[in-house]
């Protein structure tokens, strides 16, 4: 499995073949990577906004360079100084759809089936707001899915360089519980 295969097939499987925001793309790939058992190969590491994979970012850039994914900038919310923040939107192109079919017919067919199944199970992840997804990804990274006291999560977050307040931890823990009841079963290779 390569990040190129994973990201391409992910776009072939997400509703509307589209993901809005770089952070959201990273976190959706993180949770789907965990659900399909390939997260370790994607090389996630802790960064300021949560687990981040340079491989996923690079694969996305390559897919854009090959015209399989179209990247567009959209106006985003205004910041505190009234500066408009841009939001990136990623959408599979017509050529990209052909590429997904080509890859799914070949040796990546098993991975494709796993990703499709994972998206059914993790519909809440695909629909979630990127900020909430980021908190959930951080909490999952810190706890590895184990039941952990909220105070302890806060301490671990601080030592990783993340700041998570108690409401954010509660929200993330609730989200992780919700997706667990719907079939989230993370595995590492």
């Amino acid at each position, binding site marked *: 499995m390569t990040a190129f295969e994973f990201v391409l097939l992910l776009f072939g499987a997400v509703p509307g073949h589209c993901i809005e925001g770089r952070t959201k793309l990273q976190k959706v790939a993180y949770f789907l990577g965990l659900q399909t058992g390939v997260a370790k190969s994607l090389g996630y590491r802790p960064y300021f906004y949560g687990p981040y994979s340079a491989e996923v970012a690079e694969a996305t850039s390559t897919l854009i360079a090959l015209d399989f994914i179209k990247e567009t900038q959209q106006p985003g919310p205004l910041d505190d100084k009234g*500066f408009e923040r841009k939001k990136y939107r990623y959408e599979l192109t017509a050529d990209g759809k052909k590429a997904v079919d080509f890859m799914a017919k070949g040796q990546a067919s098993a991975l494709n089936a796993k990703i499709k199944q994972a998206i059914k199970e993790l519909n809440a992840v695909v629909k979630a707001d990127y900020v909430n997804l980021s908190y959930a990804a951080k909490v999952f990274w810190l706890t590895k899915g184990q039941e952990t006291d909220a105070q302890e999560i806060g301490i671990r977050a601080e030592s*990783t*360089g993340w700041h998570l307040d108690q409401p954010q931890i509660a929200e993330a823990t609730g989200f992780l519980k919700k997706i667990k009841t719907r079939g989230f079963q993370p595995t590492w290779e």
Partner: protein
Amino acid sequence: MSDPIQIRDPIHNFISLNEEQVKVIDSPIFQRLRNIKQLALASLIYPGALHTRFDHSLGVFHVAKSVLRRLELDGTDEARVVEFAALLHDLGHGPFSHVSEQSLEMFADRSSLPSDQKKEKIHELITAHLIETDPDIEKILGKNRSRQVTQLLNAWPGDPVFRSIISGPLDADKLDYLLRDSYFCGVAYGRFDFAQLERSLCRVKKQLMLRKTGVTAFEQYALAKHYITQNVYRHKGRLVTDAMITRAIALGIRTDKLPAMQKLYCFDGTPAFYKNYVTWHDARFMTEFAGVRAKQGKCKDVLCRLVDRRLFKRVFSLGLESFSYEVKTFMGNYIDKPETVCFRMGIERAVSDVLSFEFKSAVDPDLVILNKVKTKPIHEMAMNDGQVLVNGHEQPEPINEVSKFLDSVGTAKAGAGVDLEMYAPVEWLSRSRRDAVCERIKQSVVDVIEQAVREEAKGHDSV
């Protein structure tokens, strides 16, 4: 501890080391880096590029030390670990630096590795092993600190800011090599305002960040990285020399069956491998495999061409976006690894036929090289596997939201691309002849690649 030794350096002027650090650089395993050039055979293109991993390691040490001082973290135990990690981060480099990494990956016997190491990068395993087991290093650092150094280079459980000084978008490695490579290659592409960038570094919420005063210097740094990549690291002559060394190694192992080459690159994680590995450097490699006593064969032929600077020529170069969606998909995902060797050799054999017909003399298929050249977009190259944050008024902000310049070049298309190239041992009589031949064979090579991918895909379908 006082700093008894000051070493003159063309980039940073004086580099000061204390007694412990001097002992490290005086150890034989560190001195070996004097004989491993930073940019392999880039000196065949840029004659000044004779600098070594030794100079660079000292430079990284100096930058790391000055960043620690800037962040007021110097003098702590962790700071000492950072300084040693900076000095030792390239200890595992083999002959011709990064070129060896590709061959180690290709020929490693991963089945012999423990399960937790099977997916690790071989050169990282080698570096960690050497730091933790070399008797001189162990004697100077002690077991515990050696372990901490390898943790910092790989998975650091402590304060993330220390790790960021060693690995990340603003790490000491990049801050040194851009300036150093630029200086020794005699180009201005890699230059940026180091002093301003360094003085604007700060530590906020256990993260290495920039103050706003460093934004312009970082913009310069981002462009410097892009331009030096385009003009030095991805210079067509340099791509050819790297590909020729890699091919010579492969021919030495597979075709000429040279025991010394096999022993050097067939990594199995045994003490015997490491013991042998540390005895190799650029000069010994060339003497052993291209010298007068070297065994005749294809490996020696290729290496002798490098010695005489009779470089292979680039006969084909085309952006992958120009191919069919099947080729774009297959080659976009392609990695040169043991499982793909047959597929690659099939293309190289067919292209050698095209060239033999064009040049009316046989071109050896073993000497035709397919190379996939990938370039990252400007913003991704600048961020280097991470995110650069600017310490804003209330909370840190990503630099591309603070810098209008980086925001405008922030799209994935800016500077990105994947090219397929072919190199071969042919000679051009003139530039116009070169252009005419390349134009004439272009469609034939495209057809070869399209056909090979279709056949490969059919093979997978039938499986």
